[in-house]
């Protein structure tokens, strides 16, 4: 399997070339798909709670890895469609905004795998927010409606009920105004 650093390196080269020439080479799709696969494996790693790990650490790392994969999904989609949509080289400029964050995040997630997890370094939820806010500004976040629809209805129903209870209880037990 191609080293992830090489995949990032190749992606960066394609982006740089696209920015210089004003044309996107669809050869970029191969390293991007490799990166997406790497982040998918990373997400899967954090699905299992090991006895010495805390649930909040595991979930925040899973959430971070998953969001990196989402950004790559959108990036792949835009590059694939660029010949037809004329999103070229705009897509390369936009990709260059998020690529450094993805590189940095991958190395931190990789380091966290060998444990122990240092949240002051990982900053799982903060890091995801930073990635998403940047990615949203450059249209690098996909719609998750299909992902949501693919979740079993029972999981969603119970999940919404529990979340509603906790979000209301976590703030204040306020009475409705009369």
């Amino acid at each position: 399997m191609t080293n992830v650093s090489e995949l990032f390196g190749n992606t960066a080269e394609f982006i740089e070339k696209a920015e210089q020439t004003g044309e996107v080479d669809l050869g970029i799709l191969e390293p991007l798909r490799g990166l997406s696969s790497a982040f998918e494996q990373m997400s899967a790693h954090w699905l299992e709670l090991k006895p010495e790990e805390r649930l909040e650490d595991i979930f925040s790392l899973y959430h971070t890895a998953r969001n990196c994969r989402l950004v790559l999904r959108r990036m792949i989609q835009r590059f694939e469609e660029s010949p037809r949509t004329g999103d070229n080289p705009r897509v390369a400029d936009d990709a260059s905004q998020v690529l450094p964050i993805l590189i940095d995040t991958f190395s931190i997630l990789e380091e966290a795998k060998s444990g122990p997890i240092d949240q002051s370094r990982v900053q799982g939820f903060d890091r995801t927010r930073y990635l998403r806010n940047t990615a949203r500004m450059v249209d690098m976040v996909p719609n998750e409606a299909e992902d949501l629809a693919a979740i079993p209805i029972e999981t969603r129903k119970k999940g919404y009920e529990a979340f509603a209870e906790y979000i209301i209880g976590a703030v204040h037990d306020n009475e409705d105004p009369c």
Partner: protein
Amino acid sequence: MITKILVDSNVLIASSVFIAYVDDFGSSFKHHFFDDAMPLIEQLRKHISKRIGVVTNTIEIEVHGVFNKAVLDTLRECRPNATTKKLYEFLSIVLNRCEDRLSDILVGMMREPVLPDHKALWLPKVEQMYDELIQQARDTNVQDIAYKTAAGSSKRFQQQAYDALLEDLTNRYIQLKRLLMKSAGSTDREILAEAAYLCNLYKQYDDVKFYLASCDLAFSPTGPKYCSRIVTDEILNRFNIICHWPSEVAKELQRELK
């Protein structure tokens, strides 16, 4: 005169928790104060050039903390009965949706810096106010007040007078008495101290009407026609801050901007 509205964390949370169902459930999933919060958020966005909506770092941090905790608590509760992958994915989606909405809402607000030293000037005054109010709540016996007041009525109507007075007083003292069960938390007090600092700061430059929009009874009034407002009035007297529910602040704002 300028208007400034400090938006409490519970208003931001209420307006951020919204996920539209398009398939199975037939209605949207939203916070139970969502409909109360949104008119204000929309007003602030509509009049963004006037720079009315304000938040602080304390407020933002609290909102993120609440989202993270709610997701983790849900995970703990649902984990034994759901496929881990699907549950994790679901909660990741929910968290993304809430954070994205929050991010869009915050774009329409000004983040005002409040240094710890500045907050520290006002926090003792806030603490003192709540200490005094809690003591007042302990010392107040509404049955006694109703009895003594009704004693002045003619004997024939004393029971009726007592019943009516007791109901009225009970309503009026809801907000104050609630402090005995659930006083303003430490973050609430910090937020009020920040509000006091900002109100004082703005007043140095201009005539200002300063609101704190909140769904928290430690600030905002309650009861029939908002008759229970001892804490709210005390905040106004001591700090010149008008506290109210976001929907009511939105109505006030609409009146002012007509």
